[in-house]
């Protein structure tokens, strides 16, 4: 159960009308993240309403991955505050983690376990239904290689297992950081399917990708550069 939220609406960084705090999946206020002396996020204000599919675009080093890592609570903000799914980033990590799934650059697989063993381990650890493992592997087209060790998988196959892992649970917030990298068209479709299914059940999706052919399901696009949210550099000519 979400903690009581402040009744005042939180201000949005964009020109959109403010979102009541209780309806916000993500609410960041002047969040800054610094690595050593290098800022990766600079005073980011962001509001994402529940159920939205948000596309995040920007060049390498723009801060997209750091933003998603902060939302997943893998990284803490150096300054600023925020809440995810109604839980504060600093005190609500456990609650956020129960409700969030991050697919990042690293696929977080154990090389000496098979794809099936990896998924079973994560399913048991996260309280997901063990019986969904086989179906998840079939969805991403890895049924035949499920018992092979991950060490022998290509990068695309590893990414497919990561996508399959995200289907084991039904997170309220799905965070995808360059999920199409190294994937063939069939696997990209599997990622799109995951985004579509997640959005269809009313959950929130934040998708960071360079791939200009993807992200069609997004209701809004956020542009980042040098750790800041910036206006649409294309002037709306292309997404």
């Amino acid at each position: 159960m979400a903690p009581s939220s402040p009744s005042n609406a939180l201000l949005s960084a964009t020109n959109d009308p403010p979102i009541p705090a209780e309806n916000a999946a993500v609410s960041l206020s002047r969040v800054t993240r610094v690595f050593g002396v290098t800022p990766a996020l600079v005073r980011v204000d962001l509001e994402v309403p529940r159920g939205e599919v948000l596309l995040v675009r920007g060049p390498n080093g723009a801060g997209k991955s750091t933003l998603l890592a902060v939302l997943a609570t893998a990284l803490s903000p150096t300054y600023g505050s925020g809440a995810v799914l109604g839980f504060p980033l600093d005190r609500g990590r456990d609650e956020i983690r129960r409700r969030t799934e991050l697919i990042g650059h690293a696929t977080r697989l154990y090389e000496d376990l098979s794809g099936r063993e990896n998924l079973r381990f994560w399913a048991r650890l996260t309280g997901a239904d063990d019986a969904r493992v086989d179906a998840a592997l079939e969805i991403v087209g890895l049924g035949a290689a499920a018992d092979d060790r991950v060490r022998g998988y290509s990068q695309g196959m590893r990414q497919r297992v990561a996508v399959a892992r995200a289907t084991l649970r039904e997170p309220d917030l799905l965070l995808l950081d360059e999920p199409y990298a190294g994937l063939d068209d069939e696997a990209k479709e599997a990622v799109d399917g995951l985004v579509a299914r997640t959005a269809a059940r009313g959950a929130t999706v934040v998708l960071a990708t360079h791939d200009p052919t993807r992200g069609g399901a997004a209701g809004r696009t956020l542009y980042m550069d040098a750790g800041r949210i910036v206006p649409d550099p294309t002037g709306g000519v292309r997404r």
Partner: protein
Amino acid sequence: MTLVRQVGMIAAKDLRIEVRGRHAFGTILPFAATLLVAFGLSIGPGRTLLQQTAPGLLWLAMLFASVLAFRRSYESEGEDGALEGLLLAPIDKAAVFLGKAAAVALQLVVLWVALLLLVAALFDVSLGGDAGVVVAACLLGTIGLAAVGSLFGVLTESPRAREAVVPLLVLPLAVPVLLSGVKATSLALAGLGSQASGWLGLLVAFDVVFLSAGTLVFEHLLED
């Protein structure tokens, strides 16, 4: 999900990876055996001197070999960012520490059996007299070493850490284990096992301190 079940899942996963990779038997055991032989050769052929130094050499070989086991335990977590997965999993982070410590401890127990047999053969040492005290010292020392190694092994996955961080932190902290283990084993091999209770007590205290500390602070080492 209970903490015990989470610990069991982490330990089972680590042991499965170890069995698949055969790191303990393929690398750590030959390393420890080589150390023992090298120590023995450096001391010379004197039978009495070999028997007197056997406990110290045994524990030194075990200590150095255990550092490899700690390193390996976290290597599998760092290969593809799996440690971040454990961080983000909705589990008690103490389970990660205790699970990894349990898995390492089981590997070290296997290593103890092999090294004790090797010492008995190479140094002509009889383990029969106060074998219970030797076994107790080895088990208690194993728990302590596994606790220290699993606590600080996670630092090797820090972006700013270097591989040397584990031996630099673990070896000095493990001195009480080394000292107590050597003393208790020496007394037992001399047939004076009844006098080893103080040293065994020190090992128990060390285990309690580091298991408690690890359970309490591991989350802070794991978190950003």
